[in-house]
């Protein structure tokens, strides 16, 4: 059930705007502030990190989106850019860093490796996508994706943040008291990580035969 929010009359709003009076909602200004100050975690895993660095430098200038402040501590970060191959040895650390980030937190899985294992998908030591353990907001394909692709992912994330309601049943995870903030950190098993995936965030795709 969704509760219809009282909206301001569009005509009155336009009329006020002509007079230099701008109106907004608390939700709108909250999301506006959040979407323009997404601080990423300074965290690169492989070659995609080079593109991420390039995106933050002068030529592509991630600062235009208020996201140039790469934080070296998960305590201060809002966004985890999983930039590169997540090996099974690294996966517990990635999940733990994600757990240590304060809410609200977002994840961009950057590049073929981070979203699916990429060229190393058949390898015994590479995780086949970080979305098996943590909820990913934006996936970027590419090997590696160009900085423009990362900028597009940023803008996609900003649109997502902009549309997150502050109240109601559809409000995002960080505003719900019973939604988890930490996800189970996988352990090193005999042959594989245990568990091999987190069923609450990822299910193995069902094969449909025609």
């Amino acid at each position, binding site marked *: 059930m969704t509760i219809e929010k009282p909206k301001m009359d569009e005509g009155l709003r336009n009329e006020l705007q002509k007079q230099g009076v701008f109106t907004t909602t608390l939700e709108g200004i909250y999301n506006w502030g959040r979407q323009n100050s997404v601080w990423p975690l300074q965290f690169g895993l492989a070659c995609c990190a080079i593109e991420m660095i390039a995106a933050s430098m002068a030529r592509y200038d991630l600062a235009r989106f208020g996201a140039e402040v790469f934080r070296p501590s*998960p305590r201060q970060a809002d966004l985890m850019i999983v930039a590169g191959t997540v090996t099974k040895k690294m996966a517990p650390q990635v999940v*733990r860093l994600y757990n240590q980030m304060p809410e609200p937190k977002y994840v961009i899985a950057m590049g073929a490796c981070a979203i699916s294992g990429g060229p190393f998908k058949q390898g015994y030591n590479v995780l086949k996508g970080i979305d098996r353990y943590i909820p990913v907001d934006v996936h970027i394909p590419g090997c590696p994706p160009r900085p423009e692709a990362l900028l597009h992912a940023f803008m996609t994330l900003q649109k997502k943040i902009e549309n997150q309601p502050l109240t109601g049943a559809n409000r995002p995870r960080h505003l719900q008291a019973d939604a988890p903030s930490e996800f189970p950190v996988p352990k090193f098993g005999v042959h594989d990580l245990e568990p091999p995936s987190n069923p609450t965030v990822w299910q193995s795709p069902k094969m449909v035969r025609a």
Partner: protein
Amino acid sequence: MPGEYNPYLFIVVMVVAAIAFAFAPLLLAWLWARKFSPQKPGPDKNATYECGLESKGDAWIHFKSEYYLYGIIFLIFDVETIFLLPFAVAFTGLGAGAFIALVVFLLLLVWGLAWAWMKGVLTWR
């Protein structure tokens, strides 16, 4: 007296305004957290941050620091150089009192150097 201008009133107003300015954002953040955004602490989140790895062992261990010796010797030579230069420049115009004072100062530093020498710090091992 009623209606009289009290210059200290300004200070009181400023103090109240300053305190309100400092605490209002904290209060607003607290109210926001109460109304909208629930706190979600957890074992990982409350753990010591260490690059994603679990911290091992005790941080309260004895750590043998020998750097202080280098610090002391550096100080001896550094301070000596700083004071020796003006001493040398003004040497011909100095009175006996200033000369003795500086020699005593130099001897104090030489004493430190001799102590380090006797301790074997200057021997390269």
